[in-house]
């Protein structure tokens, strides 16, 4: 039983309670009968039913009812037939027990004829009640099963949410790379003397950059326009720092600007491209940012002409982008990293267009 951890104490407890309950019922009908005898009879009967109910539980565990649909008719029929059979057998055994108890008062021994004589009346009186018991067994089993499944799903959802928050937290922390921040401040302290206008510009760029980072919207998706504005502040700062060593080419058609993308999704890719395409090469490099679309997807490309991505050496940034895309798009996206040694790296994201709350161009 993978979903139901058996709680046998409860199972037998309930059958025992039923025995007590039915003993009081019999007492109401036959007030002159011995209480102890009625109790003993009903307990034995209910325990027999409990024992037979195990078979129904085994069946239910083996072939559980998954849905209230016609496609499940075989399973429904199986449980219907099984419960009728178990109820019938259980009732027969209960009848035998009741006769044995009664025959203790009689002078003559119990015979087959006597047994058969009273049977139809016994079935007419009790069969439907007994069948209900057996259905209750199957129903409680399925009720518990659905509850456990629901709980498991809830735990799973909570775990996804935690991972989501972790990914977001990491993404945010990546914006505030201390190295980037302190180098930028250092550049500003040089510009203050040589190019006050440039220093002014740089301070406002850095301000915008930090503001975007700190005011990160709580929703996961922002417009491409907003994401690009953030990237452009970042790149403008890097261009002042690296001068001629950094060339940037952007091709983003205006009609794609309102499409929504996960926030900060481009920044780790751009940062990676700069690190491998530029920071690691004295002669500098070229960074290309492109966006396009086809009928199903928005396609974002970040390309550098650096050393080329080595498969299997995926850093925190890329892994985080991958994890976040997986959580948001649940496999309906694609992320491809194409690297050629000495010829740079191309990262392509294909993001589905039909997300709920999607903006339209």
């Amino acid at each position: 039983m993978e979903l139901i951890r058996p709680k046998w104490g409860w199972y037998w407890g309930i059958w025992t309670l039923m025995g007590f309950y039915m003993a009081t019922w019999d007492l109401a009908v036959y007030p002159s009968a011995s209480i102890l005898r009625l109790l003993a009879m009903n307990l034995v009967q209910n325990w027999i039913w409990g024992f037979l109910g195990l078979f129904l539980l085994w069946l239910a565990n083996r072939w559980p009812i998954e849905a209230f649909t016609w496609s499940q008719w075989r399973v429904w029929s199986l449980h219907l037939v099984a419960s009728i059979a178990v109820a019938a057998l259980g009732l027969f055994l209960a009848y035998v027990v009741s006769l044995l108890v009664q025959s203790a008062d009689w002078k003559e021994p119990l015979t087959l004829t006597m047994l058969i004589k009273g049977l139809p009346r016994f079935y007419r009186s009790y069969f439907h009640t007994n069948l209900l018991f057996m259905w209750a067994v199957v129903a409680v089993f399925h009720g518990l099963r659905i509850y456990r499944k629901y709980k498991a799903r809830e735990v799973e959802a909570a775990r996804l949410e935690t991972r989501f928050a972790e990914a977001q937290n990491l993404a945010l922390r990546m914006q505030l790379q201390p190295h980037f921040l302190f180098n930028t401040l250092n550049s500003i302290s040089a510009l203050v003397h040589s190019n006050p206008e440039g220093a002014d510009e740089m301070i406002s760029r850095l301000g915008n950059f930090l503001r975007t980072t700190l005011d990160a919207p709580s929703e996961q998706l922002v417009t491409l326009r907003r994401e690009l504005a953030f990237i452009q502040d970042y790149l403008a700062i890097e261009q002042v720092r690296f001068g001629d060593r950094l060339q940037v080419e952007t091709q983003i058609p205006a009609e794609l600007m309102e499409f929504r993308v996960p926030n900060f999704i481009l920044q780790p890719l751009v940062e990676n491209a700069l690190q491998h395409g530029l920071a690691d090469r004295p002669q500098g490099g070229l960074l290309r940012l492109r966006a396009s679309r086809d009928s199903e997807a928005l396609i974002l490309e970040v390309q550098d002409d650096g050393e080329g991505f080595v498969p299997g050496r995926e850093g925190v940034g890329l892994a985080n982008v991958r994890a976040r895309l997986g959580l948001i798009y649940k496999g309906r996206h694609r992320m491809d990293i194409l690297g050629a040694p000495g010829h740079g790296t191309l990262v392509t994201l294909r993001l589905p267009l039909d997300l709920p709350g999607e903006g339209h161009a």
Partner: protein
Amino acid sequence: MSLRALVVDDESLARQRIRHLLRRATDIEVAGECANGLEAVQAIEDLKPDLVFLDIQMPELDGFGVVEAVGPNEMPPTLFITAYDQHALKAFEVHALDYLLKPFSPERFHQALDRARRWCGQKSAEQGPSLEAVLAGFRQEKPWVDRLLVRQGDRHILVRTAVLQWVEAEDNYVRLHVEGTSHLLRQTMTGLLARLDPAQFRRIHRSAIVNLDCIKEIQPWTGGDHLVIMRDGTRLTLSRTLREQFGDWL
């Protein structure tokens, strides 16, 4: 007495900043500027500056790579500059070497400069802070290199360890075999092995280290030795005594 200084940083604005601050120090003249580690190694050997302003994060060969290439004992008094590097800072703190954190104030810069002046004034290298100890400390944090600096004629080039196929011992040198060519490096086998990532490089013989990615096959050979055949066809010996490290493979 005027001190000749070399300014090394890959960002031109950062070099400009130091130049600007040095205008107030009339006893220091900027002898040269370098935009990367390789240029810096060359300039230190050519210009023999009295003082080096050395940025730590630079493309290809970083500040520590420069010290290592020049040799900690041959390195002039050095003022390290960094924006952020926890490994480096730890090494500096442990060995009480002064350093500058970007962005720094003029006061802080001149304070560090005063200390560097005193260092330059020391008659012998032993009296100054030990670069060798700092380098050793830094290596503990980051033991493996991804590039090796080798001399080719009168200039230096960098060899990426990823393209290094195997290394051969040659007297007091090691010969680095890369595709189509080889380079001599003044280094011992043990010294080099300590700097190479053991996930990629293993010593297979007294006189050979191989890049595991470049092995094509390994065959049993005589006397418990094995024959290692490299992708380019080179045949090397895996000696019996070093065989255990390939335990899972053989």
